[in-house]
């Protein structure tokens, strides 16, 4: 992945536990991105199950942003993740799809139901709903769509114990 030519950037700092990634509207970028966010969750001390669920949530939201919230291949999707107080706050912003895309998104988020069994698509936000504690949609002035998700630690988990990164000192 060429970070400059592909307009992909990531920033984050240990301790702040906030990360932001901007990626082109191309599905190929999703697998490393979802694994990156799951790895951050692991480092932040969350359980393996929490990390797997995080990976799924990131995957489904970014896939939706790329497939339904992008006008063309030059569009981009921005993901921001923050881990604090035993919870993950995630937001995925796209550049806005068609009016129909937006109506479909609202319906999927606020009154989700799985599609009929013969449909290959349409289950992503049902999964996100089930794995998240909160989900909401914000609309930007220029048609951008931002989906916010909060996922608190699972009830059977202890408070996450953050792993120390290599470059962090004890002081």
């Amino acid at each position, binding site marked *: 992945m060429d970070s400059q030519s592909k307009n992909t950037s990531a920033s984050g700092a240990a301790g702040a536990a906030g990360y932001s990634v901007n990626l082109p509207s191309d*599905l*190929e970028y*999703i*697998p490393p991105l979802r694994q990156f966010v799951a790895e951050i969750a692991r480092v932040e001390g969350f359980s393996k*199950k929490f990390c*797997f669920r995080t*990976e*799924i949530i990131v*995957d*489904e939201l970014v*896939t939706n942003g790329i497939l339904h919230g992008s006008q063309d291949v030059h569009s981009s999707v921005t993901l921001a993740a923050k881990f604090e107080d035993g919870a993950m706050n995630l937001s995925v912003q796209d550049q806005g799809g068609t009016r129909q895309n937006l109506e479909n998104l609202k319906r999927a988020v606020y009154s989700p139901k*799985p599609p009929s*069994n*013969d*449909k*290959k*698509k*349409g*289950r*992503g936000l*049902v*999964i996100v709903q*089930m*794995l998240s504690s909160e989900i909401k949609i914000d609309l930007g002035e220029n048609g951008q769509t931002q989906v916010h998700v909060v996922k608190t630690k699972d009830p059977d988990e202890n408070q996450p114990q953050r792993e120390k990164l290599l470059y962090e000192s004890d002081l």
Partner: protein
Amino acid sequence: MDTQIELQISDLDNVPHGKLIKFMGDLDATNVESTLDQVTKLIKEGFVQIVADFRNLRYVNSTGLGILLHFSKTAKEKSGCFKIANVNDNVYEIIEIIGANTLLDIYDNVEEAIASLQSRR
């Protein structure tokens, strides 16, 4: 740059029109089309008694689940079946969330899945 997914396909002994498919890696939106092509080709060739071994399938998302349901439906339409074995807990949770556990034939291991095929004959 698809996510790594590999399908290892072999015959099923004593099961006419049978194939064992070992899924290895992650099944997601970057590789569903190639997976769809490979399994659809088998079904079109008449191999409609299929056992899918998920022992090494680490991850599946909603797009991947969509084609698993499609395989099951297509095989049943041809008087066959698409059975799944060795599903890990994380993948099973996703299957369960969308209610696909009631639609897919899921077995603890490959031997049980194959035995169920042989008992159909």
